[in-house]
């Protein structure tokens, strides 16, 4: 607007500048730990603990190699007797007088995280969608009480019931199984998922389905072909919330898994225990651990933005 007259709610240039600066400043502050982790992953162990901290350093993949392998310290003569190293990572390890004795369990743990995280997210969103649709569209006896009950499962920190769950899982043979963890995370996420999604279903006019039904769809087809496409934004937002919870969950993972079904969060700090404080390996593990959520969120960012602001503005 050249006239200089501003509509209410329209920002002045100064306002825009201030708002932009605030956002930039916040982004900077929020990014520092992430950049730190990313950088540490590429530092050598001495660089990672040097003081003052090194901002410029010679990058190395040692942290990543250490993350994926187990190594043992050997005498120089023994290493000499093995002949020349067969790969770049062997060479990297031998420089520190170590030999690779096998792969670490990080890949397994990471895979567990993926299976449990995405599995429970899928289940929570799938069941949540059906339940939300039911609560929104049908006459359910004691609807309000049921919804309150579902919500009430969120009213205490899940860890408060850690001991009963630990005992139940042991009795049922679910301890240290992927199925058990998927079940647990699904149960925790379901209340969030039902409530969030119900809000989205409520926003979709019934007329869409009714029009589809009059035009010849069955109720289920109408749900599948008409309601679901409308819910995409809501489902995406809900899925991200569920995934972030299941992916980052630490306490239950530590308590209920050990050998086979352990996820990445309780595993990564354990790397510290192997041959001193291996900060680059921890940072490498953390970097890789962050990736799926970042990718998932970036892929769904448009839906997420719409999802979070949903209902704020009527179309």
């Amino acid at each position, binding site marked *: 607007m050249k006239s200089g007259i501003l509509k209410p709610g329209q920002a002045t240039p100064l306002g825009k500048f201030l708002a932009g600066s605030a956002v930039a400043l916040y982004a900077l502050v929020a990014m520092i730990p992430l950049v730190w982790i990313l950088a540490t992953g590429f530092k050598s162990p001495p660089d990672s603990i040097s003081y003052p901290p090194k901002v410029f350093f010679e990058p190395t993949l040692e942290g990543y190699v250490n993350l994926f392998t187990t190594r043992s310290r050997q005498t120089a003569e023994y290493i000499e007797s093995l002949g020349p190293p067969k790969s770049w990572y062997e060479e990297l390890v031998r420089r520190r007088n170590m030999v690779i004795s096998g792969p670490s369990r990080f890949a397994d743990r990471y895979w567990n995280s993926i299976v449990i995280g995405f599995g429970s997210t899928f289940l929570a969103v799938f069941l949540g969608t059906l339940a939300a649709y039911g609560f929104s569209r049908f006459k359910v006896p004691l609807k309000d009480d049921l919804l309150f009950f579902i919500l009430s499962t969120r009213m205490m920190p899940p860890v408060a019931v850690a001991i009963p769950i630990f005992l139940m899982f042991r009795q049922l043979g679910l301890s240290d199984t992927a199925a058990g963890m998927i079940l647990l995370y699904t149960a925790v996420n379901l209340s969030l998922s039902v409530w969030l999604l119900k809000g989205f279903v409520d926003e979709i*006019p019934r*007329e*869409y389905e*009714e*029009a*589809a*039904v*009059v*035009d*010849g*769809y*069955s109720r289920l087809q109408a749900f599948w072909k*008409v309601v679901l*496409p*409308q819910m995409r934004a809501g489902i995406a937002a809900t899925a991200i919330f569920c995934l972030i919870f299941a992916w980052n969950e630490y306490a239950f993972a530590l308590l209920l898994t050990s050998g086979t079904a352990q996820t990445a969060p309780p595993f990564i700090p354990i790397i510290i225990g192997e041959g001193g404080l291996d900060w680059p390996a921890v940072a490498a593990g953390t970097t890789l651990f962050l990736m799926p959520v970042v990718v998932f969120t970036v892929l769904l960012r448009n839906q997420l933005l719409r999802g979070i602001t949903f209902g704020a503005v009527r*179309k």
Partner: protein
Amino acid sequence: MRGAGPFGSGGICAERQALAEIRLQNLHKNFGDFVAVRDIDFTVDDGEFFVMLGPSGCGKTTTLRMIAGLEMPSSGQILIDGEDVTWNRASQRDIAFVFQLFALYPHMTVRRNVSFPLRLAGVPRREVKERTEEIARLLRIEHLLDLGVGGLSAGDRQRVALGRAIVRRAKAFLMDEPLGALDAEFRDVMCEELRLLHDRLRSTTVYVTHDQVEAMAMADRICVMNHAEVLQIGKPAEVYSRPATKFVAGFIGSPSMNFLPIGEAVPQGSKSVIVNGSEIQVPETLEGISHPRGFLGARAEHIVMSDGGALRGTVFGVEYMGARQLVTVDTAAGRLKLRAPNTVRVKDGENVGLDFMTDRLSLFDGDTDLALQTRERR
């Protein structure tokens, strides 16, 4: 005027459907303790434009939804084309429904919205394309076919919704306040177009509205409902000039009918009633009112200002409306509105006499709300 206009003639939907009368028999619907529709019973003739009119919450939409199969009746029967469809699913009734808020699928283009029912029915692609484009031409939305529905104006959206309803050549169209979401100005245009479209397609249409002007303009017959009950079914002129109840009289027409309390019993065979001490001639009554809670009903155009007059009052206000003016007169029997030609000069505060056109007057029983049978209206 009808038959010409934007929709031209010939071509579309030349093959008329088989007889598609809609018969409702003792239809009843309650939601818990709340009675939404009480024992209604009427037939919509084949090819008729049938308007259900009433204030919101009167049960007209529920009735329409029961005809569509979106709501199941508590008791009673619905027959379409002679076939009992009471318990059939909506998808099995072969009817088309137009919603107030259009209910266009927002993730589809105009073309996909209009062709939706055809694609659903498995009509071959080429025919889908032809019929969709034919309908688009008819409704003048051809240029919008490949746009999303999000950016369309309300009027265009409503055209798309109509297109989706028409394209299927269903047995009947059911419309739930289809013009309710449009601007007043545009509503008039669509009102006319809808009627022309109906004259073209001649398909049975049940149209729900709370707007009596719309109803009067479009209907072959109007069904007036209030409090879950049907009060009167008749041609617009009939409903206007011979309302069956005081409610109908008050609901239809703008300004609404003037009601003057009679204040004493009216014996059968009366030819006049006393309103606030003044004697007013009425058509000979064939029934009586046994209590003093009767009303004399007179429409604004049936009251004439005169020097003498059966009733006198002072002019409270004059609204000039072009060819005519609407004069509000305060009398001892209450405030009356009357229409006068614009040649009559009246000023606020002037004392005027009022004469009533005897033949056109109605009498209502205040207890039952029903109109009295008279010589003029049987």
